[in-house]
């Protein structure tokens, strides 16, 4: 555990990191980035907390069981969205033209419309969920292992 200054700053900074990560995930279909990149940004915040507070403290709030459920859920949502198009073809973008993320973008340069992309933004969220849970579990397991703690089964 690091000094009180570091812990306080980390506590304030995690909010901004979370917001930036969510921004990258949500704008994945119109700007560079996406589910994986945004998820990795959020996990970098988790690593910051890990450094500031030590793995023992973080283990109390990030439970392996919860992370495992989150990871599977993310993957299953992704697969479910792919399966939902199987009436036409697997991965068919069935949301195009509907009110949810359904607008067709105007070709050419523009500010970008977030309400486009069909299932792609939803898939970005699913991937983001999976990456957050999976990478956090990996980082936490490595930290616990190197500090000699038992990783719960």
């Amino acid at each position: 555990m690091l000094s009180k200054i570091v812990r306080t700053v980390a506590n304030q900074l995690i909010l901004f990191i979370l917001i930036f990560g969510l921004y990258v995930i949500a704008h994945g279909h119109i700007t560079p980035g996406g589910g994986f990149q945004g998820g990795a940004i959020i996990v970098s915040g988790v690593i910051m907390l890990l450094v500031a507070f030590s793995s023992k403290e973080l283990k109390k709030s990030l439970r392996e069981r919860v992370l495992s459920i989150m990871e599977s859920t993310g993957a299953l949502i992704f697969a479910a969205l792919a399966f939902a198009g199987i009436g036409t073809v697997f991965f068919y973008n069935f949301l195009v033209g509907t009110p949810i993320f359904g607008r067709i973008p105007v070709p050419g340069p523009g500010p970008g419309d977030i309400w486009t992309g069909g299932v792609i933004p939803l898939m970005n969220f699913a991937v983001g969920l999976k990456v957050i849970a999976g990478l956090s579990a990996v980082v936490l397991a490595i930290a616990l292992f190197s500090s000699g703690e038992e990783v719960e089964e």
Partner: protein
Amino acid sequence: MDTLITHSSILIIAIPLVTAFLIPLVGMTSKKARNALVIVSLAFVAFLVFALAKDIAINGIHIYTLGATSPDLTTPTGFMAPVRIILEVDGMSILMGIIWSIVSLAAAIFSFSHIASETGQNRFYTLLLLMVTGGFGMMFTGDLFNLFVFLEIASISGAALIAFRTKFADTQEGGFKYIVVSAIASLMVLFAIGLLYAQYNSLNIGALAQVIQYTTPDKIALALLLIAFTMKAGMVPLHLWFPDAYSVAPASITGMLVITSHACMYAAFRVCFTLYGGMLGTSVVGWILIIFGLLSMFVGVTMAVFQKDVMRFMSYHAISQLGYMWVGVGVGLAVLGNPALLATYGRDAISGGIFHILNHAMYKPLLFFTGGALFYCTGTRDLTKMGGLAHKMKWTTILYIIGTLSISGIPPLNGFSSKILIYESVYQFHPILTITGIIVSILTLASFTKAFHSAFMGAELPEYKEVKEVPRSMIIAMVILAAGIIFITLFPALIVNWIINPAADALINQGAYINAVTGATP
């Protein structure tokens, strides 16, 4: 049913993937429900594979375009070349699919008892199903980049599964070697794909095959792809990691790893025959495969003769048997540019090589499973410490004998049918190939007899008084594979006519593969 078959190729890949992520959730509540889920999903996948095989036998190459408005719309309106992810299943792919579905089902059943004493079993089945996904993806994809992605999925989950039994020290070493080799191989594949994509602006195998020029970068790409896939398949100069990784994995996983080696071999054939095709005719590539195949046969078996570790001994035999397939298909590749020779013996050599893949995929996992059963009962892999186990393990003994006779090519069994097909066809190419093949076969029989004698024969040893036959699920898994062997033994002509020859023709007939992608009408 028609809808199911239309979508079957993607369902075969997607169902294991979805099941893999359901397992952690289901496994939290009940162990039995989890095992049932694994079996049901793999059995359903096997059913879909056989349904698809029947469809392909009747209607020809199966195409599936992901995300399009219709499954056979390969080229979107306004585009000149296919840009979407395309699955393309032809005779050769579906043969590999049939093998993979049977072996993965048997391996899952075998695992239920084999790893029953381990911790973290939910992760084991998640990884196992991810490996199944990766294998099917490699076999069914019509897109080079997807081949790379699925190769990665299969390799990473395979490496984790090799190192799964963390209580043994050598598993970590084996898993590490496997992941290093896989990483090098997949980076080489990625670099080769980059070379091709930079020149031709396409990733689809069929579309690339249509425009490929055989320029210098293409030759570099071919070399990289071949080195990567032969390294992953364990061809001889690059085989040193192979026994280390295969001997330490749980036996069910070793059985599956054999098939991932075959999948890499399939990818190498796909690159040689379909991507480069006629351009390699009468060229040096066929000879390279033949020479290194011969080396694999000979080095594999001579290294196996003096091994004491039962799994290591079988791993070296796997290298040796893979050599037969390289030689058979390599002869076909060497005469690909000469239609007369291809018709006389080239096609038979390819058929023989492919038939040997099918046979090897039945008896080698069976032998690995018996090796795993011995390890399960005695707690050692050292053949010198075993003895007299035939008194206690009657089923395992019988199944081991079936596997041994088959791998040594003893006449009525299936190993003989494919070996005789290879011997007779490659003899016309060069007699030395057949002579080496027969010598290797004799050495195989000799070493397997020796191993049989030291493990099963003799008087009962006092330290194995308490040994019992292995649990029922392990026997069922072995019996599934033995039933496959006996079926092929009884009806070799049926198998060759219905499965093997279409697969060989699919490799030779590059035009059909290209037409299926580029010529398809929406």
